[in-house]
């Protein structure tokens, strides 16, 4: 139960130590101008063969977005409302005009995620699990506000990062990746935290994370 908070806490603690990347940051001016307060997360488009992938991804998106300071529309409630409106599949929802979706919920922005890769290669000794997600945040007027891409590869033989805390995160992921019933949630969680909260192109802080003036 506490594990989520823990991963986020650890990730944040690590971020406090990280030195800023040398390369120029992405242009965030459209996002700053729009300054959305609320984000609607819609079901993902799945380009992998794993039918479970969209549910894992969807479950792991609300926490990093809310911890970044945005109001996130309730994931399950959103799905129920979308289904009542006749929207079931990610593909179909991603084709719908953002303005229509945003108006239905009163959302400032809509987050679209595509699962580009999601596979585990179980070889005799080595196992490699790769996930790759593309994130796209679009304002209610249809303007693209932010994009990011996150690829995370995991293999138990390569978990020594030289950082004790990062090793612990890796150990948690390893424990979940059993051959019989692999649990992708810890890995997906880590990918989302990296893309939304910590990476060089992370989402800027939302209204609930900004220091009070």
């Amino acid at each position, binding site marked *: *139960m*506490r*594990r*989520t*908070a*823990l991963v*986020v*806490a*650890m990730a*944040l*603690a*690590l*971020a*406090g*130590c990280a030195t800023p990347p040398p390369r120029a940051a992405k242009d965030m001016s459209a996002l700053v101008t729009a300054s959305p*307060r*609320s984000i609607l997360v819609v079901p993902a488009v799945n380009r992998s063969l794993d039918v*479970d992938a969209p*549910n*894992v991804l*969807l*479950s*792991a998106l*609300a*926490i990093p977005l*809310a*911890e970044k*300071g*945005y*109001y*996130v*529309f*309730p*994931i*399950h*409630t959103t799905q*129920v*409302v979308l289904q009542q409106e006749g929207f079931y599949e990610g593909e179909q929802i991603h084709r719908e005009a953002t303005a229509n979706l945003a108006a239905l*919920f*009163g959302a*400032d922005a809509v987050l679209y995620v595509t699962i580009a890769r999601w596979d585990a290669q179980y070889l005799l000794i080595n196992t490699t699990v790769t996930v790759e997600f593309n994130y796209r945040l679009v304002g209610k007027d249809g303007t693209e506000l932010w994009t990011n891409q996150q690829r995370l590869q995991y293999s138990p033989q390569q978990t020594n990062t030289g950082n*004790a*805390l990062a090793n*612990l*995160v890796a*150990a*948690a992921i390893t*424990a979940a990746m059993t051959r019989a019933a692999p649990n992708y*949630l810890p890995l997906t*969680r880590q990918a989302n935290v990296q893309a939304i909260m910590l990476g060089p192109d992370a989402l800027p802080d939302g209204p*609930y*994370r900004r220091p009070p003036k």
Partner: protein
Amino acid sequence: MKLRLCGLALAAALALALSGCATRPTTLYQWGGYDELLYQSYKSPERTESLRVGLETLLTRLELQKQQAPPGLYAELGTLYLEQGDHQKAVHYYGIERSHWPESKTLMDALIKTLERRAKTVNPEEAAK
């Protein structure tokens, strides 16, 4: 084993945070394992009840501790009650979500209005009371 790992990691995270390395507040909310419970309920629908119990326990605890609940969770609880056919509780929790988070107003208004309208058509006497 899992517990020990968790405790160790927490200790390490705390130590690091206390060392002054972390410069900003760590987390804004307590989530009570929302992502895991949500995922389990998608995977096996019979676990939806665990999600409802988990959310209700968390929200009750946060109320007692006078802490802000994470965005969306009151509404999720409302929807879980709605799916059980308890429209009154659904309306109740949608109302709390709306009072905590102004961003949710459009959606909560729409959901509450639909449920109240439905209550009137299904049971006009009940609605008239």
